């Protein structure tokens, strides 16, 4: 009987305490529900299992979002921290939680969205979408997943500040990073510092998914940059002139048809023919008063110039879309018609972007002497070396200094000194013709690419 009584719910009477608590809980649930319905849907895609593969195009041309909890960012972390060491990382995190640098409790207030693309990871608050931070991919050194009981942490080791290096002290980019001095028994020791971005996710699957996505981003980015690095090395070595291509001319009577010297690098041929006047060489060794000294045969010099042009055209074809080639032709046209070298450089830099700025190197032989100094300075300011060394890669590890064996077009330009007044007119004519040829060829290249329907 008593059991029956216990089982029967007595209607109508509710404990006041219960009433208050239930009301509070209902209120919170309601609020959470309202919040959930207010939050926008994430920009996400289905990933192929089991390795969570995503179409690289999404990372390159789009982005993917995942929900996380942002616990905080630790700064001035020693660069030698081993991100694979669970003990080391957890020790740092525990200390940070004790000192309230990191949140202790996981609440909905920590809800954030991580947006991932081949360019950066961006963290924004889930509610309000205020940005927390953005880290370029090249600033990320490592990503770790640590399971601490029920906590699933994703820890991202990054540079201390944008442009700094999160690599260990063996990285030659040391001068870019802040350093932290510490005394050891042997004396002062300089170490690099880095940051740790600490995120929490719901479960192991979510953590692995995030890590694998980042791994794919690294693959794309560093594969692309490695191939670019190879292309730059080939381009730089191939286009380093054996002698300075001066445009002084003392004999405009002979023409050399250099079509025969062209190589067909791909099945299609360039729909143009470049005729160049053979010209006298005015090498750096000559004095301004006697520019007619020749140290190379006219044919060889014309062939070299044609080869450089051919090389540059080939490279443009592989690196630029047809629309971009048209834009390049337009910029070149404007430069010829009076716009400044400065504007030309800036516009070209914008057209090529960061990943293709090395293409500017190929223009060197075609920049007239009066603008060459500005051009060289511009190359230096945008981080493209003066052509005598390999440009740094994404890691900043292949910063080559000028080889003593390499030729110096800058010196060639400078040492040639000012030309005699009578030569300037001929130089200008030759320059005009070369640029006309280049513009025509490039426009034709753009048209032929449109016809072929080639997509870069």
């Amino acid at each position, binding site marked *: 009987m008593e059991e029956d009584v216990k089982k029967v719910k007595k209607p109508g009477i509710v404990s006041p305490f219960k009433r208050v608590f239930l009301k509070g809980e209902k209120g919170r649930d309601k609020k959470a529900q309202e919040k959930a319905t207010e939050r926008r849907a994430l920009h996400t895609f289905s990933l192929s299992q089991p390795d969570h593969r995503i179409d690289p195009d999404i990372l390159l041309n789009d982005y993917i979002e995942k929900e996380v909890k942002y616990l905080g960012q630790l700064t001035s972390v020693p660069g030698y921290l081993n991100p694979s060491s669970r003990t080391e990382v957890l020790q740092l995190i525990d200390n940070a939680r004790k000192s309230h640098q990191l949140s202790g409790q996981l609440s909905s207030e920590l809800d954030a969205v991580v947006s991932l693309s081949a360019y950066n990871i961006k963290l924004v608050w889930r509610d309000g979408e205020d940005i927390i931070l953005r880290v370029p991919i090249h600033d990320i050194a490592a990503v770790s997943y640590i399971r601490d009981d029920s906590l699933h942490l994703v820890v991202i080791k990054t540079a201390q500040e944008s442009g700094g290096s999160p690599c260990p002290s063996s990285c030659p980019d040391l001068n870019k990073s802040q350093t932290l001095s510490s005394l050891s028994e042997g004396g002062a020791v300089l170490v690099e510092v880095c940051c740790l971005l600490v995120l929490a996710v719901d479960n192991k699957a979510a953590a692995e998914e995030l890590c694998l996505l980042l791994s794919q981003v690294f693959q794309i980015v560093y594969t692309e940059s490695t191939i670019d690095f190879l292309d730059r090395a080939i381009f730089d070595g191939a286009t380093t002139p054996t002698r300075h291509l001066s445009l002084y001319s003392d004999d405009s009577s002979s023409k050399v048809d250099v079509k025969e010297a062209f190589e067909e690098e791909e099945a299609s041929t360039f729909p143009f023919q470049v005729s160049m006047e053979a010209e006298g060489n005015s090498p750096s060794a000559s004095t301004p008063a006697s520019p007619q000294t020749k140290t190379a045969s006219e044919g060889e010099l014309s062939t070299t110039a044609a080869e450089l042009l051919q090389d540059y055209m080939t490279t443009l074809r592989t690196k630029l879309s047809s629309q971009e080639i048209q834009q390049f032709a337009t910029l070149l046209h404007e430069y010829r018609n009076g716009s400044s070298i400065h504007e030309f450089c800036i516009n070209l830099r914008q057209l090529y972007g960061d990943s293709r700025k090395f293409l500017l190197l190929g223009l060197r032989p075609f920049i007239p002497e009066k603008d060459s100094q500005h051009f060289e300075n511009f190359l230096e300011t945008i981080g493209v070396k003066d052509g005598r060394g*390999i440009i740094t890669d994404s890691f900043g590890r292949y910063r080559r200094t000028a080889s003593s064996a390499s030729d110096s077009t800058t010196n060639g330009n400078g040492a040639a000194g000012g030309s005699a007044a009578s030569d300037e007119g001929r130089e200008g004519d030759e320059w005009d013709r070369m640029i006309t040829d280049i513009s025509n060829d490039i426009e034709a290249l753009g048209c032929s690419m449109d016809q072929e329907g080639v997509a870069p």
Partner: protein
Amino acid sequence: MTMEDTKNEADAAAIVSMALYTVMYPVFNQLEKVNLSAAQTLRAAIIKAEKENPGLTQDIVMKILEKKNLKINYNECLLRMAADDVKEFTIDRREPEFQELNERARALKHILSTIPDEIHDRGGFLQSIKDIASAIKELLDTVNTVFRKYQHHNRRALEQQKKEFVKNSKSFSVTLKTYFRDGNSASIKSAIAE
């Protein structure tokens, strides 16, 4: 035959004749220790036959492999073996620039020969590509130095060789992009052999 046809033929000959330099030359060297006269006769005969019929040596080698039922990756083996020095392709001149050229070429061949082992490890492979890039640049720099410092009656031929090298390097780069897109390693090994 147009100049273009001649050039294409020369390209093809260079590639298929790799078997002669890479596989047979070391065999001849070993045979010379056994019977000098016979080995030299055989060497001269095969070199002449290869010159007249480019690819003959490769065909012979492939047939031997087939006969012995050896299941090996021919391009991989060629690559690994190509790291060895070939006396006929070593420059004899003692000037430092020419010796440096020998060293640069040797270094590049050595790195290329490690590709079959590295290709399946993405990180290691990317590092190898960077090393290859550096080696190519250094080799081309040295070639340019030689051009600049030394006048040679056969300069045009040397420039042509440089152009060939640059062209094949670019082709290698294109093949790499295709590989990273499609994952077909056979094309990479073939491109490296070129």
